[in-house]
């Protein structure tokens, strides 16, 4: 974690992704270039279906680009690795494990001692406010509760790079705000690199150093907006002139893309 | 199955008249012991002569045949020794005798140090329970003052015995044609025959014959008599032409002629003449009594039943009465 903040952590180089759907080609990404620096917080916004999740999957090593390269710390990515953690858009909890065991899953795989596993699990259960549901199975949780388990599971393994796909989408505004500031604190404290997909432009501006705006299908990077508001950012930040201007600008950019899809 | 007209045209020919022939379905098993007589009769056209249209239905074993009789789909079944137990219990009636089985043998592996029955003590001996070969084994043991308890009995099916004998995993077996021939051919000099049916003709007769249900017998006595008559002629033809019959059976069951020819001595093929004589002097009744004794000894039948209860001597007599 001694890297200075200008080292490139993730380098996405001319990435193209084509899905073959019964003979037809769906171009999900077309020539995406992006450098994410070490300890950088990048948010991605863009209209539904523009390829955000696809890009995240490729960085995670769960999908391979049709052409182009993705490098992590300068090395080509070949499969998933424990230095990257993912919160999936559809949670992907293990339905046969309790909340507690879902969160402990990655820790146990790392051979962590039992009591440490317990301590860590309890800590993240508390962060997402689910301590009293430790023994519940996913089917016994509400939508937002499931999402929080997925967040806790990704946090627990303490990865260098956090890849999050609309992680707060199913949460009420209050829990969302709390988890946002929790995330920012962790990020600042532990020098994580974050790649965060969201539909909430406010959320993007509150969190990110740079907001990547993606264009409609075939997904490309339309623009990258630097957010120069100093951390820590709070609820008051949302009232600032700078914030509102950025918000309007980004909103407008995405709106253009949205219109492009609607034609 | 072709029906060449018979050379021996009898007075019986008239019996059929110009009526349409009666249809009879006959169950048999795919071997010489079971099929030879009826095949001979069909080939020679004897059944036709007696106004019977025979349709053969093949079965793999006695239980299925008996079940088929019970279902009414089959009118007559050719059965081996074992199924007679059911007749004794009153489930079916015997109306014609076919042959006396000679195919059971007790074989042993000389290389395992067995050359007499006595040597079997403590050895692995394969049998299939309830078969006539088991009875031969029992009789042989009895003669030597032993019982099955003195051996290590292994229950096995016939094709298993071949591989087990040749592979050396058993020391002896009680089996029958054609597995016995196969074992002897494969093992050559190492194989020794310890006992066979011929050694115990007094104690055990394994008669095969034709049976039907009580109900059918009552309602169709006439057909049974005609069947029995035709059968007598067929049996007469069978003995001197046994090789020809072997070939016909081989063709019917799609087996190798050579294999079937190997089994041509697997039974005492009774002729009409013998049957007529044995019936008159009571030998046939004795066959059945001795057969029943075998079941009683084995504990299969609790107490003796009069042979007349399940063997329809009246039909046998009526059939033989007109025999030349």
């Amino acid at each position: 974690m001694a890297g200075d903040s200008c080292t490139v952590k993730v380098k996405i180089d001319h990435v193209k992704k084509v899905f073959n759907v019964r003979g037809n080609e769906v171009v999900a990404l077309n020539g995406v270039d992006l450098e994410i620096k070490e300890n950088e917080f990048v948010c991605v916004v863009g209209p539904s279906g523009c390829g955000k999740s696809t890009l995240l999957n490729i960085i995670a090593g769960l999908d391979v680009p049709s052409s182009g390269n993705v490098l992590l710390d300068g090395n080509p990515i070949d499969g998933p690795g424990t230095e990257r953690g993912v919160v999936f858009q559809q949670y992907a909890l293990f339905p046969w494990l309790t909340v507690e065991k879902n969160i402990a899953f990655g820790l146990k795989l790392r051979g962590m001692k039992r009591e440490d596993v317990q301590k860590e699990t309890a800590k993240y259960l508390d962060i997402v406010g689910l301590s009293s549901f430790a023994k519940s199975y996913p089917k016994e949780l509400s939508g937002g509760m499931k999402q929080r388990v997925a967040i806790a599971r990704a946090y627990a393994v303490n990865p260098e790079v956090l890849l999050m796909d609309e992680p707060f989408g199913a949460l009420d505004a209050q829990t969302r705000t709390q988890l946002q500031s929790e995330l920012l604190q962790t990020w600042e404290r532990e020098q994580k690199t974050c790649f965060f997909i969201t539909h909430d432009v406010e959320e993007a501006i509150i969190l990110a150093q740079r907001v990547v705006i993606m264009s409609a299908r075939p997904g490309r990077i339309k623009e990258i907006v630097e957010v120069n508001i100093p951390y820590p950012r709070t609820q008051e930040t949302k009232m600032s002139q700078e914030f509102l201007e950025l918000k309007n600008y980004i909103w407008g950019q995405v709106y253009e893309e949205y219109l492009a899809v609607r034609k | 199955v072709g029906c060449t007209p018979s050379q021996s045209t009898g007075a019986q020919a008239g019996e059929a008249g110009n009526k349409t022939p009666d249809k009879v379905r006959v169950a048999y098993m795919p071997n010489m012991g079971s099929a030879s007589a009826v095949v001979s009769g069909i080939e020679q056209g004897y059944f036709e002569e007696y106004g019977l249209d025979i349709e053969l239905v093949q079965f793999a074993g006695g239980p299925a045949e008996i079940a088929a009789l019970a279902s009414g789909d089959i009118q007559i079944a050719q059965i081996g020794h074992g199924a007679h137990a059911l007749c004794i219990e009153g489930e079916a009636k015997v109306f014609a005798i076919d042959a006396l089985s000679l195919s059971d043998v007790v074989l042993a592996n000389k290389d395992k140090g067995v050359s007499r029955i006595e040597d079997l003590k403590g050895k692995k001996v394969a049998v299939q329970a309830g078969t006539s070969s088991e009875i031969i084994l029992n009789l042989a043991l009895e003669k030597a003052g032993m019982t099955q308890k003195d051996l290590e009995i292994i229950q096995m099916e016939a094709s298993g015995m071949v591989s087990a004998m040749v592979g050396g995993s058993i020391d002896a077996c009680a089996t029958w044609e054609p597995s016995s021939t196969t074992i002897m051919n494969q093992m050559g000099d190492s194989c020794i025959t310890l006992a066979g049916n011929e050694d115990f003709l007094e104690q055990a007769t394994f008669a095969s014959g034709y049976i039907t249900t009580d109900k059918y017998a009552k309602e169709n006595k006439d057909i049974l008599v005609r069947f029995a008559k035709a059968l007598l002629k067929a049996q007469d033809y069978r003995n001197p032409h046994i090789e020809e019959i072997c070939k016909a059976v081989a063709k019917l069951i799609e087996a190798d002629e050579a294999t079937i020819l190997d089994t041509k001595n697997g039974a005492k093929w009774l002729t009409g003449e013998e049957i007529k004589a044995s019936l008159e002097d009571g030998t046939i009744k004795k066959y059945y009594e001795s057969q029943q004794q075998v079941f009683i000894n084995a504990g299969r039948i609790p107490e003796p039943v009069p042979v007349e209860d399940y063997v329809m001597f009246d039909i046998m007599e009526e059939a033989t009465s007109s025999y030349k």
Partner: protein
Amino acid sequence: MNKISDKVWILISFVTAIVLWQLISMSEAGVVFASPVEVIEKCIKKIADGTLWLHISYSLFRVIAGFSLAFIASIPVAFLMGWYRPVRGLIEPWIQFVRNIPPLAYIPLIIVGVGVDERSKVTVIFIASFLVLVVTIYQGVRSVDATLIKAAKILGASDRDIFFKVVMPASTPFILVGTRLGLSAALTTLVAAELTGASKGLGMMIQTASGNYDMGTVLLGIIIIGIIGMAMEKFVRFLERRLTGWQETHVQ
């Protein structure tokens, strides 16, 4: 490594099989195991005299008829068992009892019940495959995601609709397993089924040949049954590709 196509693997398997076969037939097992040459000779002979086709076509008819009836019957039964408690209570113990009984054991009963014509063979095969199918599909019915059923109900689906339009497609993987194992059951029961009085059929052919120690024919019969099985598997594969394209799975 991954570039080697399926065909190559099948070829390797095939050649290994033939070599192994030849070796076994040359060992002491040769008594009960005819050599490839013997089997081919038998095969040629039986093709020449026209009997092989007859055996195959009789058996094939029985297997297909028995299995098809079982398939048609098992799906609604499995569904009713999953859906209506009384039906389950009434049927389940029977299925559980009968499915563990060797088919050989109930053959006499079937002969008495339905006679010795084609019906008895088809019945034996029907029972064997029906039991396998029902057990499998019932598990499939039980495993259907409850939210999908809720969604269908909300859209106005009757129990019938739910069965045909939700439970059946959602249980496709189970129906496929059931089909595979049901067909296997049909084929492995063929010999038993043809004990019920037949003069044609592969099972009868094997049975007779085995009684006569004609191991070449026995093996020929077995191989033909095996090949029929593989052909049926090809068909199931074809169905599988058509039916489970929607599934999101790891294995391609």
